[in-house]
């Protein structure tokens, strides 16, 4: 049986936590930055892929095939493998500074893989909007692009906000995978501290920092959703 005082010493050393916390926070800035610059890229790319996959014109068949192949391939391989492959591989082919940065290509790898996951979320949302909505919009003379923009996509996004946030929370955590190819972000900093002090408390500190972001993020979406329901919804059944 593990003894509580041993657990405490090894995972919850208050002094050590206080000592490493500022370093962890410093390193966490990089995680936040990777998250901040990959998110818009992911949302835009994912929406474009989802729209490409939902096109209906027979002539756009190659576009659909591309979208399907992209999501299948990106999602069929572990994220970490893409990070190694692109994050290590691309800088290795002889690019000049600053284009040979593993941080840059690691972010690109993360962005490309997450675009595929989020594209599937958007696709489910688009397909979940009832066909009669499209019929109503088209019967008013809206083009298929206008129908997408004003009628289908706004409803699709509302429908998929919870799973979308789920992916965003995952992304916020998977940003740490970029540490495996070099950049010193929070997980790597915690590893350095752990090795230095032979103690796991820095990892616990890192976990706390992640939680301090992911939990408010989740609560905030819940709040947005319920506010939207309040505004447009009818009376709710008790």
């Amino acid at each position, binding site marked *: 049986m593990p003894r509580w005082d041993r657990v405490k010493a090894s995972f919850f050393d208050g002094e050590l936590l206080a000592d490493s916390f500022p370093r962890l926070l410093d390193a966490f800035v990089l995680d936040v930055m990777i998250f901040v610059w990959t998110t818009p890229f992911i949302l835009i790319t994912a929406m474009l892929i989802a729209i490409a996959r939902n096109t209906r014109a027979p002539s756009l068949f190659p576009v659909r095939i591309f979208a399907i192949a992209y999501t299948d391939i990106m999602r069929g391989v572990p994220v970490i493998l893409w990070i190694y492959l692109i994050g290590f591989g691309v800088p290795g082919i002889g690019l000049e500074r600053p284009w040979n940065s593993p941080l840059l290509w690691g972010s690109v790898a993360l962005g490309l893989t997450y675009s595929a996951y989020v594209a599937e979320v958007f696709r489910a949302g688009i397909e979940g909007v009832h066909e*009669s*909505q499209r*019929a*109503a*919009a*088209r*019967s*008013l*003379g*809206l*083009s298929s692009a*206008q129908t997408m923009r*004003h*009628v289908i996509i*706004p*409803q699709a996004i*509302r429908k998929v906000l919870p799973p979308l946030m789920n992916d965003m929370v995952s992304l916020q955590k998977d940003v740490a995978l970029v540490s495996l190819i070099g950049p010193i972000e929070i997980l790597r900093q915690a590893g350095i501290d752990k090795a230095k002090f032979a103690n796991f408390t820095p990892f616990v500190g890192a976990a706390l920092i992640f939680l301090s972001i992911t939990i408010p993020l989740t609560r905030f979406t819940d709040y947005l959703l319920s506010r939207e329901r309040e*505004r*447009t*919804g*009818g009376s709710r059944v008790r």
Partner: protein
Amino acid sequence: MKLRFDAVSKSFGDNHVLREISIDIAAGEVVTFIGASGSGKSTLLRCVNLLETIDAGSIALDGDVITKVGVDPNPVRRRVGMVFQSYNLFPHMSVARNVTLALTEVLGIDSVEAMDRARTLLERFGLLDKIDRYPDQLSGGQQQRVAIARAMALNPEVLLLDEITSALDPELVGEVLDVVRELKGSGITMLFATHEMSFAEEISDRVCYLDSGLIAEMGPPHQIFTEPANERTQQFLSRVLKGQRRD
């Protein structure tokens, strides 16, 4: 002729839903389509604003064939409004936006003027106080009246009404039919699929009885409802009228 159906046929797989339907409809005429479930009423209406593509024959609007391949459907749809059984309002938009969407996006009218038009229409249908509500906050009858206002916003020449009262509680049917009565007075051409026989009798210039994709009988309402020539029309009417005696 406002609208001319010439030998229009349509199948879904080997289900022949419309079989060589030919009808001429004059401007301002109100034609009601009755018939059993699955007889092809909705399909016929949906062909007019090109939500369905026909397999053979043609439909002409003011003499122009609209069912040719290569015809841009959007200008046709601007001239042909449609109201659906299940309202199909846009739930994420206010009543006002539901009505102005096509005005600003399709006609390119600026939002102030579009809003003025929406107000006029909603007032006409007794909905002005609901202008800032969302569809889910309205009764079925109110939603359907908003849907009619939305279809009327583009000032269509032809209005397709597909069983617009079928999803409504009986006590809400009247308010929607009042709106249709009012529209008839304005001279718009209407194609109306319905199970409301007494209303059909009142409002129609002509009634068309569809039986498995064929026009079994067509004529002025008193003729169809009081002395139908076709045996199947008689059977159909006695069946529905028995169920509909509510007054």
